[in-house]
C-alpha cells in the first residue's frame, strides 16, 4: 500500500511526537513575564496537531527512524487503529488546552503546567504510533510521569495524597510491563512487534510467554482502571485540575490502557479463548461495579470518575466479545460488529466524558465547591454550562439522536446476534443505572433552589465556553460517523479491520516497507 493523503505528500510520522516535545521544551524559556505568549504557543501546537491528525486519516505508513531497516531499527507505524486514536487525542487535547487558558489562572506556575501537558500529549502520541514494544514502554512512562505530576499540581492535601496513590500503583504497573518486555525479548530475541508476532506464530506460547501475557494484562489493565485494579482512579481524577481530569479520563486511560492492551493481545500474541473470556469478565465487572459505586456519590467529580470506570467496561466488553468470537472461529461479521461497537464507544466516551469534566470544572470555578448537596438551581446562573452538561449527559445515557445511543445499540445488537443474551441484558441494566446517576447530577446541580451563598455565581469566560460548545457539537455530530457510510469506511472500518485481522499485522508491516 503506498501512502497518500489529500495533500499529495505524506506526513513524516515523527512529527506527531516532535511537535509537542519541542513545544514542551520551548515553554519554560518564557518564564513569568511571557505567560500569555506561552499560552498562545501551546494552543497553536495543539491546534496544529489536530490539523495534522485530520490530514492523516486515510494513510497507513511505516516510518523507519534513521533509515535502519526493520528488525535492526525502531519504526513508527500508522494504521487504522492508530489514526482513530490520534484523532481522539488531538480533539480532546485541543479542547482541554483551550479551556485551561482561563481555568489555570487560579494556580501559579502556569508555564510548567503547559509544558507538562505537552509532554503528556507527546507520550500519548508516541504510544499510539510506536511499532516497537520497548518504545511503547518508554512513551508510556513519559505520559505516566507527566500525569502523576499534573494530578498533584495544586499541592493541596487531597491532591498530594491522590497523586501519591496514583504514582505508586502506576509505577508498579509500569514495572510489570517492563518485566513482560524483558521476558518477550528473552524468549523471541526481537523487540519489533511484527517480528515478535511472527516468532510467536511459528513457535507457540511457552511458559515464559504465557507469564509475559499475564503481566501485560495486569500492567495495562491497571493503567486502564479495569475493576480489580481501579483503586487509584476515584482519588486521582477528582483531585486533578478540571482540564487534566478531562485529559486523564478522556484519553489517557484509553491510550495507555485499552489501546496498548488490544495491540498486544490481538496483534502480537493472538487472541485465544481464555483471553477473550478474561476480557469479557473484566469488562462486565467494571461496568457493574462502576455503576453501583457511582450512584451513591455526592462529590460531582468522583461520581464522574466512577462512571468512567463503568464506560471503559463497555469498551473492553465489546473488544473482548469480538475477540472471543474470532478465537472460536465464529462468524467474522458478528465479531466486526462487536469490535466496531467497542471502538466507537471509546471515541464517543473520549468526547462526552471530557465535556462532562470541563463543565464540572466550570461549575467548580463559579461555586468553589464540588459537593452536590451544597449546590442547586444553577440553571439560571450558568446557562451555557447547563446546556452543554445536558447534551453530554444525554449522550452518555444513550438518548436517541446523540452519539452514545448508537454505540450502545451496536453493542447490544452484537451481543444478541452472537447469542450472548445475558450480556445484552447487563448492558441495558447498566445503561439504566447511568440514567439514574446523571439524573441525580442534573437535579442536584442545576435544578432546585439556589442557596444563599451562590447568588453571586457568574457564567464562565469566553475561551472556556468555546471549548465546551465545540465538544458539545461533536457529541451531536458523532452519530454521523456510523450512519454515513463513507465516513464509517474511512475512519472506523480500518480500525476494526486492524483488530479482526489480528496476526496478519506482522505480514502487513513487513510487506509495507
Amino acid at each position, binding site marked *: 500500500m503506498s501512502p497518500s493523503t489529500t495533500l499529495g505528500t505524506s506526513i*513524516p510520522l*515523527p512529527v506527531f511526537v*516532535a511537535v509537542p*516535545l*519541542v513545544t514542551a*521544551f*520551548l515553554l*519554560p*524559556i518564557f*518564564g513569568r513575564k511571557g505567560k500569555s505568549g506561552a499560552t498562545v504557543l501551546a494552543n497553536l501546537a495543539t491546534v496544529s496537531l489536530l490539523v495534522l491528525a485530520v490530514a492523516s486519516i486515510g494513510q497507513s505508513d511505516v*516510518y*523507519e*527512524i*534513521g*533509515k535502519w531497516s526493520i528488525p535492526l531499527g525502531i519504526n513508527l507505524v500508522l494504521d487504522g487503529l492508530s489514526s482513530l486514536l490520534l484523532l481522539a487525542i488531538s480533539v480532546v487535547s485541543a479542547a482541554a488546552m483551550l479551556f485551561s487558558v482561563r481555568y489555570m489562572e487560579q494556580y501559579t506556575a502556569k508555564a510548567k503546567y503547559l509544558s507538562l501537558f505537552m509532554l503528556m500529549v507527546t507520550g500519548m502520541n508516541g504510544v499510539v504510533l510506536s511499532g516497537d514494544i520497548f518504545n511503547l514502554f518508554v512513551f508510556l512512562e513519559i505520559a505516566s510521569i507527566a500525569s502523576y505530576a499534573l494530578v498533584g499540581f495544586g499541592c493541596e492535601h487531597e491532591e498530594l495524597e491522590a497523586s501519591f496513590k496514583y504514582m505508586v500503583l502506576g509505577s508498579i504497573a509500569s514495572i510489570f510491563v517492563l518485566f513482560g518486555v524483558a521476558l518477550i525479548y528473552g524468549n523471541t530475541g526481537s523487540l519489533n512487534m511484527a517480528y515478535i508476532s511472527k516468532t510467536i506464530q511459528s513457535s507457540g506460547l511457552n511458559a515464559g510467554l504465557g507469564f509475559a501475557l499475564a503481566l501485560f494484562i495486569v500492567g495495562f489493565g491497571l493503567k486502564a482502571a479495569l475493576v480489580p485494579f481501579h483503586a487509584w482512579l476515584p482519588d486521582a481524577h477528582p483531585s486533578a485540575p478540571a482540564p487534566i481530569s478531562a485529559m486523564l479520563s478522556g484519553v489517557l486511560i484509553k491510550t495507555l490502557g485499552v489501546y496498548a492492551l488490544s495491540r498486544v493481545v490481538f496483534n502480537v500474541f493472538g487472541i485465544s479463548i481464555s483471553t477473550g473470556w478474561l476480557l469479557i469478565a473484566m469488562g462486565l465487572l467494571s461496568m457493574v461495579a462502576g455503576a453501583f459505586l457511582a450512584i451513591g456519590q455526592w462529590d460531582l467529580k468522583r461520581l464522574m470518575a466512577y462512571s468512567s470506570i463503568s464506560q471503559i467496561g463497555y469498551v473492553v466488553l465489546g473488544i473482548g466479545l469480538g475477540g472471543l468470537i474470532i478465537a472460536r472461529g465464529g462468524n467474522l461479521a458478528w465479531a466486526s460488529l462487536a469490535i466496531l461497537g467497542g471502538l466507537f464507544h471509546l471515541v464517543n466516551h473520549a468526547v462526552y466524558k471530557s465535556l462532562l469534566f470541563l463543565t464540572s470544572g466550570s461549575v467548580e470555578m463559579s461555586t468553589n465547591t464540588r459537593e452536590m448537596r451544597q449546590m442547586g438551581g444553577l440553571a439560571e446562573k450558568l446557562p451555557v454550562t447547563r446546556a452543554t452538561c445536558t447534551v453530554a449527559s444525554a449522550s452518555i445515557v444513550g438518548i436517541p439522536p446523540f452519539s452514545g445511543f448508537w454505540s450502545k445499540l451496536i453493542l447490544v445488537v452484537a451481543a444478541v446476534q452472537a447469542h450472548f443474551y445475558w450480556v445484552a441484558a447487563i448492558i441495558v441494566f447498566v445503561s439504566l443505572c447511568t440514567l439514574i446517576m446523571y439524573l441525580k447530577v442534573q437535579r442536584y446541580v442545576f435544578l432546585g433552589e439556589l442557596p444563599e451563598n451562590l447568588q453571586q455565581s457568574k457564567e464562565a469566560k469566553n475561551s472556556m465556553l468555546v471549548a465546551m460548545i465545540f465538544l458539545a457539537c461533536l457529541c451531536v455530530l458523532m452519530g454521523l460517523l456510523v450512519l454515513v457510510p463513507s465516513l464509517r469506511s474511512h475512519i472506523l472500518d480500518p480500525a476494526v479491520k486492524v483488530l479482526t485481522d489480528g496476526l496478519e499485522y506482522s505480514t502487513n508491516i513487513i510487506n509495507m516497507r
Partner: protein
Amino acid sequence: MKGMTIIVKTISSWVKVLIFLFGIYIIIFGHLTPGGGFAGGVILASSYVLLMLAYGREFAEKNLSLPVASKLDCLGAFLFALIAILGLVLGGSFFVNFLYQKYLPGQALNLISAGTIPLSNIAIGLKVGASLFLVILSLSICCKDFRPDMSANKEE
C-alpha cells in the same frame, strides 16, 4: 543549609574541578569507551552537588542559579531536537547519521568519527547535568518548610 568545615571546603574546591573534567571526558569519548551522555551528565551534576554539600546551598545557587539551569536544560533538549531535524533535512529521515554518511566519515576508533553520535552525547550530557542539579537544588529548598510546621505541632 550550612556548609562544612574548612578542611572539607579547601579539598572540595580542588576536587570539584577534577570531577567536572572527568565528566566532560566521559561525555566526549562516549562513542569509544563506556559511558556516554547520561553517565557523563550525572558526573557533571555530582560536581555541583559536591559544591552544594561543602559550601552550603546559597553559594551553589549563586554559582548556577535556578533560571540559568532551567535554560541550559532547554538548550540541551533543543540541540538534540536540532540534530534530529537536521537528519531529516539533510538525510531524508529523522535521526539519520548525516555526518557519517556524507560529510565527515572520519576513521574508526578516532575521536572524530561516528558522525553525529558525539554531538548527541554532548547535548544529552548538558541536559542531564543541568536537570539533575535542578532536581537536587529544588528538593533542598523544601527543607525550610518543615521546621516551622514541626515545631508548631510540638508546641500544641
